[in-house]
């Protein structure tokens, strides 16, 4: 038996979480370094996964592991990755070390505030982050629906404590009020996601019942179900398929989040510390959109087509609505949260456009949005912790006193508004093109998001960074070394993936093609026949490139 690489990628952060939590109260610094070490180990493993993965290989999943787990119910411990999962695991493993570094001092205030505590905030904070990472990674890997469900739900628990336990202490009013708001936000987060999860659980069990009925033995295995459908052995029936689809989709739409199920996100993101907010929006929420691609579309292809018009409209509303609300926010983190809602609208739009550009773009969008939001949110966190306030009006003229802070904030913002040359542009344009080619009107309305994104980003930048220097920010220090270590690689990555996204598209394209073939959708053909241009260098090059690729 070969080395269980996928299991290891999830187990390493889990061990890290336990080890970090086990450290005695006095070893606070050691706990931080230990957590960082384990997150880096996980990243190394994720890179190994990415390199071992062969995008050209046949079959939907690679590096598979399969063991019987609960025999009586056909639950298997089944792992496997496609290109989409590899990309998202890499994203998760990449971001967590930055989250840990950025949150280096987030638990310190709690240590000082509660000297006679019964728990160890520092150890807890970093252990919880690693626990979330472990569960997210295994959710991306699971190809057994039940296995996925368990970790999809279980990650709520560490997230709940991260949101409720560790605030940024930068609310407009006193600590007591903000503690109240914080726990309210955490409970809201939990309830929304639990409600989604409950409905999904019903659908999961329903799916089992149907397979047990028709195949003889019940199964939760994605590959088995897809194969059985393709072979004609399994027919869910229109109504059942639609109900099951809705059950799954509801849970994922809450997590993603899709309008009108989004209202938990702004509270959860603004009340938690910036690194935790990054964990929510850049990592955990991606499980929702990822699961739409992997489970909703592949398990219920017909129902997915059936629900597409409604979902496209909801996604479109998310895009415009999230952006409009971002414009009106007075709190920096709430603004970024609403911007994320707009961006999740784009991702879901791309997924349900059912074109290779739309879905490829949506997958790239998940990765790029993760990086760009992390850059913007983490710099915002540095800014907020310096001033002790999240309110935009409390800043002004920061550019003059802290040019590097302002510069990195601007780049994060420009990535958020999808400036060409930075990674998010590639994915946003692909989503738009992919949507437009099937649904022109929706595609055109979605481009409004381009203008609105510029509005909320530039207004935020103008109000916080430009103008006369406010006296409260006049002594603000510029980025420190640790902070620069967090931001610089993210910016470099945004630039690299903006200029050369090919490694990512090569990884993702075959998985997208597979998904589309399961859903039985083909890209619309261009309406006009294109004339070959005599003597044009471009077409010559294009042909030779394809030859080279074919030869490989």
């Amino acid at each position, binding site marked *: 038996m070969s080395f269980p690489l996928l299991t290891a990628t999830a187990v390493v952060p889990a061990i890290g979480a336990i080890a970090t939590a086990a450290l005695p109260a006095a070893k606070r610094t050691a706990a931080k370094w230990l957590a960082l070490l384990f997150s880096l180990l996980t990243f190394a493993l994720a890179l190994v996964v990415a390199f071992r993965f062969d995008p050209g290989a046949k079959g939907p999943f690679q590096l598979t592991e399969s063991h019987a787990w609960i025999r009586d119910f056909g639950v298997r411990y089944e792992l496997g990755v496609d290109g989409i999962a590899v990309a998202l695991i890499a994203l998760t493993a990449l971001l967590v070390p930055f989250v840990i570094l950025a949150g280096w001092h987030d638990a310190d205030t709690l240590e000082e505030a509660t000297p006679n505590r019964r728990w160890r905030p520092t150890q807890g904070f970093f252990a919880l982050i690693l626990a979330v990472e472990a569960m997210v990674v295994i959710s991306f890997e699971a190809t057994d629906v039940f296995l996925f469900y368990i970790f999809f739900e279980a990650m709520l628990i560490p997230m709940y404590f991260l949101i409720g336990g560790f605030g940024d202490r930068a609310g407009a009013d006193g600590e007591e009020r903000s503690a109240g708001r914080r726990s309210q936000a955490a*409970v809201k987060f*939990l*309830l929304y996601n*639990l409600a989604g*999860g*409950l409905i999904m*659980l019903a659908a999961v069990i*329903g799916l089992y*019942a149907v397979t047990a*009925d028709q195949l003889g033995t019940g199964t939760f295995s994605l590959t088995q179900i897809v194969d059985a459908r393709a072979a004609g052995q399994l027919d869910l029936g229109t*109504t*059942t398929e639609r*109900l*099951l689809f809705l*059950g799954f989709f509801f849970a994922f739409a809450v997590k993603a989040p899709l*309008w*009108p199920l989004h*209202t938990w996100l702004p509270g959860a993101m603004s009340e938690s510390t910036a690194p935790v907010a990054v964990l929510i929006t850049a990592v955990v929420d991606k499980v929702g959109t990822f699961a739409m691609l992997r489970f909703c579309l592949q398990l219920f292809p017909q129902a997915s087509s059936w629900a597409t018009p409604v979902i496209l409209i909801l996604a479109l509303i998310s895009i415009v*609505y999230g952006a409009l*609300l971002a*414009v*009106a926010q007075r709190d920096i983190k709430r603004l970024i949260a609403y911007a994320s809602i707009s961006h999740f609208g784009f991702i879901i739009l791309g997924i349900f456009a059912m*074109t290779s550009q739309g879905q490829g*773009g949506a997958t790239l969008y998940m990765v790029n949005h993760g990086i760009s939001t992390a850059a913007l949110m983490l710099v915002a966190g540095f800014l907020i912790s310096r001033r002790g306030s999240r309110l935009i009006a409390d800043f002004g003229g920061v550019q003059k006193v802290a040019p590097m802070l302002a510069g990195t904030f601007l780049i994060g913002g*420009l990535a958020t508004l999808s*400036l*060409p040359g930075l990674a998010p542009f590639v994915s946003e*344009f*692909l989503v738009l*093109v992919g949507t*437009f*080619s099937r649904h*022109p009107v929706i595609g055109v309305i979605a*481009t*409004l998001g*381009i*203008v609105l994104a*510029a509005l909320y980003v530039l207004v935020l930048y103008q109000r916080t960074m*430009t*103008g*006369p220097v406010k006296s409260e920010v006049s002594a603000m220090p510029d980025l420190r070394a640790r902070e620069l270590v967090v931001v610089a690689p993210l910016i470099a990555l945004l630039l690299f993936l903006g*200029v*050369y996204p*090919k490694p990512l598209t*090569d990884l993702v*394209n075959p998985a*997208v*093609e597979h998904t589309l073939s399961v859903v039985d959708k083909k890209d*619309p053909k*261009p*309406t*006009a026949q*294109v*004339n070959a*241009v005599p003597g*044009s*260098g*471009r*077409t010559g*090059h294009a042909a030779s490139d394809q030859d080279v690729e074919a030869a490989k």
Partner: protein
Amino acid sequence: MENLIALLVAAPLVGAALLLCGGKRLDRTGHWLGTLFAAASFAVGVALFADMLGRSADHRALHQHLFTWIPVGGFRADVAFQLDQLSMTFVLLITGVGSLIHVYSIGYMEHDERRRRFFGYLNLFLAAMLLLVLADNYLLLYVGWEGVGLASYLLIGFWQHKPSAATAAKKAFLVNRVGDMGLSIAIMLMFTTFGTFAFGPVLASTGATSEGKLTAIGLMLLLAACGKSAQVPLQSWLGDAMEGPTPVSALIHAATMVTAGVYLITRSGAIFNAAPDAQTAVVAVGAVTLLFGAIVGCAKDDIKKALAGSTMSQIGYMILAAGLGPIGYAFAIMHLVTHGFFKAGLFLGAGSVMHGMNDEVDMRRYGGLRKYMPVTFVTFGLGYLAIIGFPGLSGFFSKDKIIEAAFAKGGTEGWILGGAALLGAAITAFYMTRVMLMTFFGEERWRKAPTPSPDQPSVEPAAETRGEYAPPHPHESPKVMTLPMIVLAIGSVFAGGLFSLNEAFVKWLEPVTSFAHGHPPVSATTVTAATIAVLLLGVGVAWLMYGRRPVPSLAPRGSLLTRAARRDLLQDDFNDIVFVRGGGHLTTTLVQLDHTLVDGAVNGTAASMGGLSGLLRQLQSGFVRSYAVQMLGGAAVLVAATLLMRGV
């Protein structure tokens, strides 16, 4: 040779990266470094130009394929360059004028502590602009298109401690983004229609699709051009953009970036030629803007804003010409190049005046400066003669041809367009003469302290009454600034004539843009005579108003039109009411709704459906464990429901 093309873009890009990331140790040499990279790009451009001239007209286009940028399914974008006669023209203009303005900025920005960053942004602009004109497909062009927008944003807001500069920068970016929407949609339309958005296949296949599709693409491209080139209705940002340092106004907001819309339309000529309705829209936009900008230019007392109005108007001429099809493309580009010389020269002259006048921009505070700044006066004067179309100078040749082509459009349309272009020429002569007279002639109004405006009474007593007014000491600018002005003045004088020798410029561009001789309903001599007549008329009226009579140092109330023109013909008021306030109301209402309606509805539904309110209470009282029990209970109910449903 084609491998050199990437170097054109790479040189300033490397410069920008070095200057922006290099830190303080480059503070002392940064401006020279930036200038060097710009000049290097110009040198490469000249080498490529010489090489291009050595080949026959049909074999001049070069391609360079760097790498595949975005391959997803049938969608394929490349990073690939195309250097043909049209791109070459722009490359020389951008790097040539760009290098001159780098030199000028060494002097102009000497006392600015962030000079290194300024040069970094200028280099970034050059790289983006070169990418825009060298791209061989629309998506890569889009990268340059937004790249110049970013550079423009950074440079308009360069003095961002001034709230007005920060606001102007934001406004420019936003209005441009509206145009960018047009470009995105155009690219998407091309992709769904042709399956590609590379220039070669798209422009060669216009016959394969319907006119309706082409019209839609054309209109979207026009929207993009309106944003970038400050054409009605997206013109409102250009006046505010004058908040940027003057070299920026000269390079970006006069000579190069704002002309990108003309490039886009000319480059997409094959699409417009096959879509007459889109062409009509283009000429309409051009004609309206050339009058709009000219009228605004007449009313402004801020020298840079008067010149900005003029820029808008001159680009209106170019857009008009580009909308005329093959009879106009070459002249649009020719006017673009000559305008690049004289308008950059005029802006640099304005900067030189401001430099010597303590950064005063109000022309009513100038007067009689010719004695103090002889070089500026002469170079500015030559630029002035060029722009009003004084016979023999650059502007005369290029503008006259556009007016002729407008008449040649034929029918009533031709008369309207030609008439508008002639009227525009008269107004141009008027407002430019006004600028000239108010700045360099007449009483030296700056010797006296400004009288407070009756509209905005100052709380503090006037400086003069306190005896604190120290008049400025106007002086000529240093050589590093006057030298570029002299070079540009030479271009303003001779470029037009050179281009027109044997129709050299038209023949040069013909393989790319195609060319057809227009046949105006009246003879070319008549058009030229009329142009000269309206020119004299405009100059004469301006002299009567501003030359013969003293200029009041405080603006008179003025007629209704003047007052509207001072406010950019009320466009800003419209934007403010509709978009700023209307949008503000919309978003605040939405915030309310989100809180009460959406959140409330979801919570309400959840509570009534699943007994979640009970769960909420228990959770808040700390019974987290009951979560598991409730989950199982709820699940059981739902599973039962689903199983029952299966029978349905």
